[in-house]
């Protein structure tokens, strides 16, 4: 219980730190949304009108910074994330995020979970068959793939599977614009088709880490007495591999999985950027480019909360899987 | 290096309940180091926990010049904590340590600290982790010399290092000094541990289970090194061990610890031939002595020694004690002198001879 409280305290503190950082960064940097918007309207609209407009869209730069901060914290917590004041002026931030979230969740979420599951499985097998073909070939290969830049893999895939094949696989956007969204086979097919290359990019760059760490954990665990004990008991290989070795080997990876979500988000920004995939990463990129404070802040908070939530879930998973952790809790 | 001058600063006529009894001729010698009511508690659990582990509780002991005192007990009895208190790794929660009559609490300044540390070095249990793997074997010895004998030049330090390495029975010294720890066997490393301590020209070496992780064939060699150090270098040794047989082999006096308390103390032979405390008796019966008969009280042996957390008054051994009486549950027994320089903390134990001083301890 105390352990859980401690964790909760940590989450709140981290969240607060992230939120504060988030509040301070744009405010202490040069430039203002007014000039950004001025450029966007090609100078047609007067600066005064723009400032007035931004005010009606909830932008109050002249307010006391302290009260801005308090109000900001309150708004963040209560879900009043405001209206976009960037390129998408006036659109509620929640709507923008709502539009982008499913795509990121679908693409990045699936790719991440798939990479974790697949990577863990391959890692388990590689570690189990120590010295086997899998074990000798995989590590160096995946050491290299896990160091590849996301965007470069993306570019390579685009070149090979899209440019050279004359557009066999789409390299842009989330689905074909000519299709009206709905649960039609054409639409679903198009969505899947558009997800192939970005998904593959994420998978290629992130799976290596899981394979390597899982293999290493397996090797460490396999040297443990209880695995030998499992053999001595005459348990089937499958049972030893999963219930005795993998079950223990996966424990250290859980927190890594949570942390890696942060990296996945980063990767997602680049991947979404390259593939023009209208997800959260792209949204953040745009928000940053357009000095869209409310959007930027909401997204940044969301990312932090996502990582924290993942950490929490992994904490719980660890509690569930590891009785020793339970004892500490 | 020799201990002729030991008596100079000693406090004659100590009133410690644990009498002194050297190997024959040391009856009234002054204490080199003594503790009075030494206590160390640890907070356990998380930040808000108020639970306290009583690792060392109210321990008073005396070590004389050129004396080997063995501190015997099971794991968790507090013997290692006691060693670390004496080595000034931990600060005591209560009580005091007097070295040559002077309380350590009054040591001020780095110089005085260093002086004590050079007089009372420590040898650690695990030979595999007590040498820094990043350095050659000579590192610790030379550092110690530089710290504690600043007068020595570079070459003199090296020569002295070779001397102490030879003194613990390692040869060729020059070559050994240039090796890395992983190139030495466990026994060799442990000898290096003693050599390090010896380099300071110590008065008292705190040896914390120095042989327990060594193979049987090598142990005796180390024990012999300890006795030789006493003979040739004139140092005292506090030998901490769970192995009563080895304690008997080297020690002049024996202290038995249980649950943070010293439960029995006295000259080694006296304690072993007539153990007063039931715990000492249990311990003795469990010793895997190839020549000893097989007998053990399975019931007492089966339960484990307790972690002494927030103890209530009463004898800490009572749960395992075959002789426990009502008083054991209410009153914490204190050390009573039950024979010449032989004391035990037990309500049931009886003296082998009436002693006028025995009444000093509450029954």
């Amino acid at each position, binding site marked *: 219980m105390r352990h859980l409280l401690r964790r909760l305290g940590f989450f709140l503190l981290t969240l607060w730190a992230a939120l504060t950082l988030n509040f301070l960064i744009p405010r202490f940097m040069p*430039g203002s949304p007014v000039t950004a*918007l001025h*450029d966007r309207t090609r100078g047609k609209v007067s600066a005064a009108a723009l400032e007035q407009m931004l*005010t009606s*869209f909830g932008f109050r730069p002249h307010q006391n910074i302290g009260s801005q901060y308090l109000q900001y914290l309150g708004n963040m917590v209560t879900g009043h994330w405001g209206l976009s004041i960037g*390129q998408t002026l006036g659109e509620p931030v929640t709507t923008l995020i709502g*539009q982008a979230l499913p795509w990121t969740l679908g693409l990045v979420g699936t790719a991440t979970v798939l990479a974790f599951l697949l990577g863990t499985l391959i890692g388990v097998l590689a570690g189990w068959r120590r010295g086997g073909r899998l074990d000798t070939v995989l590590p160096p290969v995946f050491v290299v793939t896990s160091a590849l830049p996301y965007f470069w893999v993306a570019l390579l895939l685009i070149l090979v599977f899209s440019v050279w094949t004359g*557009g066999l696989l789409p390299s842009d956007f989330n689905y074909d614009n000519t299709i009206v969204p709905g649960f039609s086979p054409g639409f679903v097919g198009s969505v899947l088709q558009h997800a192939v290359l970005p998904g593959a990019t994420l998978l290629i760059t992130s799976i290596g880490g899981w394979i390597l760490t899982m293999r290493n954990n397996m090797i460490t665990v396999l040297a443990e007495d209880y695995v030998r004990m499992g053999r001595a008991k005459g348990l089937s290989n499958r049972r030893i591999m999963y219930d005795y070795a993998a079950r223990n080997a996966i424990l250290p990876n859980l927190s890594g999985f949570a942390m890696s979500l942060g990296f996945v988000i980063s990767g997602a920004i680049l991947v979404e950027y390259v593939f023009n995939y209208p997800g959260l990463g792209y949204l953040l990129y745009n928000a940053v480019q357009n000095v869209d404070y409310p959007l930027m802040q909401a997204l940044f908070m969301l990312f932090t909360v996502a990582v924290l939530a993942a950490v929490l879930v992994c904490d719980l998973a660890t509690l569930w899987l590891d009785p020793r952790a339970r004892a500490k809790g | 290096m020799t201990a002729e001058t030991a008596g100079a600063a000693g406090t004659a006529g100590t009133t410690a309940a644990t009498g002194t009894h050297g190997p024959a001729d040391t009856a009234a010698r002054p204490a080199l180091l003594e503790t009075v009511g030494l206590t160390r508690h640890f907070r356990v659990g998380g930040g808000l926990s108020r639970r306290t582990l009583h690792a060392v509780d109210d321990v008073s002991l005396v070590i004389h010049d050129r004396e080997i005192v063995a501190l015997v007990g099971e794991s968790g009895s507090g013997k290692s904590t006691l060693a670390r208190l004496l080595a000034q790794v931990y600060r005591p929660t209560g009580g005091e340590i007097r070295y040559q009559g002077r309380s350590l609490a009054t040591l001020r300044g780095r110089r005085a600290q260093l002086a004590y540390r050079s007089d009372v070095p420590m040898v650690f249990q695990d030979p595999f982790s007590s040498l820094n793997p990043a350095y050659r074997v000579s590192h610790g010895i030379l550092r110690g010399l530089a710290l504690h004998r600043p007068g020595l030049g570079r070459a003199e330090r090296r020569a002295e290092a070779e001397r102490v390495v030879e003194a613990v029975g390692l040869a060729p010294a020059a070559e050994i000094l240039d090796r890395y720890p992983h190139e030495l066997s466990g026994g060799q490393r442990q000898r290096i541990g003693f050599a390090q301590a010896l380099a300071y020209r110590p008065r008292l070496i705190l040896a914390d289970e120095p042989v327990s992780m060594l193979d049987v064939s090598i142990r005796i060699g180390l024990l012999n090194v300890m006795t030789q150090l006493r003979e040739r270098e004139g140092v005292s040794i506090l030998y901490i061990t769970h192995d009563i047989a080895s304690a008997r082999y080297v020690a002049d006096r024996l202290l038995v610890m249980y649950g943070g308390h010293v439960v029995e103390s006295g000259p080694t032979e006296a304690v072993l031939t007539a153990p007063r405390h039931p715990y000492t008796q249990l311990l003795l019966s469990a010793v895997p002595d190839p020549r000893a008969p097989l007998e053990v009280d399975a019931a007492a042996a089966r339960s484990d020694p307790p972690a002494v957390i927030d103890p209530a008054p009463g004898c800490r051994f009572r749960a395992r004690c075959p002789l426990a009486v009502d008083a054991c549950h209410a009153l914490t027994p204190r050390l009573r002198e039950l024979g010449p320089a032989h004391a035990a903390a037990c309500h049931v134990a009886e003296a082998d001879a009436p002693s006028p001083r025995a009444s000093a301890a509450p029954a």
Partner: protein
Amino acid sequence: MRRFRLLAAVLALGMATAACSATQHRTGSDSSSGTPSRTSGAGTPANGPHKKGGTVTIANEQGQTWTCQFNPFNPAAYLESNGFVYEPLIYVDSLNNQAETPMLATGYRWNADKTQIVFTVRDGVKWNDGQPFTAADVAFTFNLMKRVPATDLYALWSAAGLKSVTASGNQVTLAFKQTAETYFYAFADQVSIVPQHIFGSGEAAAHPDTWADPHPVGTGPFKVDPCSPNNIQYTANSGYWQAGKPYIQKVEYPAYLDNGPANLDLAAGKAQWGSQFIPGIKNFYLDKSPDNHTWSPPVLNVSLFPNLDPSHKATSNPAVRQAIAHAIDRSRVAAIGEGGQEPPGNQSGVVLPTFQKYYDAGAVSAAGYDKPDPAKAAQLLSGAGYSPAHPLKLSVITITGYTDWDASLAVIKQQLKPIGIDLTVQDLAQQTFDTRLYTGDFDLAYYGEPTGGPTPYYELREILASANTAPLGKQANGNYERYRNPAVDALFQQYATADDAGQVAIVKQIEAAVIKDVPVIPVTESVDWFQYNTADIAGWPTPEDPYAQPAAFNFPDAGQVLLHLYSKAAQ
């Protein structure tokens, strides 16, 4: 921003910001009600009316998905509604001597001192929800801007001096505090008329500036049906007031996050109307099909702005500026920096060929600016005490993300080096750049005005009039180089009252000052990006028939283009 500099290079031949009080000259300005002096007619007269049918797909990268907001008062959303759904009173063609096309007003009449204008509102126009359009809607629109200043994007009630707007019958009267002819373009062309029955009640009335307006009700040729983040589909307004129009029945406006895919769609003919930069356009687009065409008319200068303040010793020295102007090979900058897709500028400051009749070729060549002259540049510079051995160190600020400017500056840097100028390029974030440009914190700035006008006068005035400058540290408004020349200021004053020929003469006099003083160094000209495909769609604006600004992001011009387009297949 990986987009090729688009946003600032956009043609916007409208009225300048509110602070600008230039008068707008327009032939036939005193025409009587109902009879506009010059109309381009509906469509190309030669072609006559066409049958309905066909779809046009626009490829214009926005860098975002659609928000499906169509509020004409929201600058982030109005490109997608103005012209398509909402219409102005009078359309003014900036590319064709300000030719006027009556839209919701059939005509107008100024009073003598031009402080009051009366519009005659067109009869028989219906909002696309079936409600009739009336003069009251017009008056409501203007009065809304008074009530909610955030909707008064052109500062009509504040800067232009609008006093009152009243409707009576089919007449709407706008009364001003002072002469308001220069604002005609703003209130007649740029302001879209909104329906009172929508904007007069509920959320729209409470927050007309921020209301999303997801289903815009306008008088225009198209309705939004439907809109998704990925695509806006416009369908023809069957009840449109111009009988038989629009010919095109459907417009697809997909969201593109990047030039690349939009360009791919254009090259493949999947999209017919492009409005963005295509790198290597010849190979990538024009050569792909004989039906692919491009016409990107230049309208504004991209210039080096030297800091003329005496505190900047080098750049305030005319010899240094002249040396730079002589040293730069503008054709090469245009060819490499802009990939040959923007024409080179010239030292006169007149954009060619758009404003050819104002250009004083003789003066330019007499001063030796007709071709690069590094020798003369080196000589001028050594006169000022600099040489390749003792180079003048200058920095130039530019906006990061505008890679064409970066490339142009790379060329310029290379060209200045041999004459003894060591140029450092500083890429700044847009906002940082703006601040430093406005307050004069730079040696040199590479920049193009975002707005100009239908004659060179507007841009020159913006850049050169001392009214538009400010001391260092204060925000200047167009005259960022801090040029002060009373003679030139006087010329700007005279322009408003001069006749056509006189105006040409005045512009040429200003040119002379620019050539002599070199307050700015025009390098290239920015253009209105436009690509079009004629496989099925015809009726596009062309150099021969520039009936509207051709890029899809111009309003209300986009509406004009859509009214001209037709499908060949449907005929």
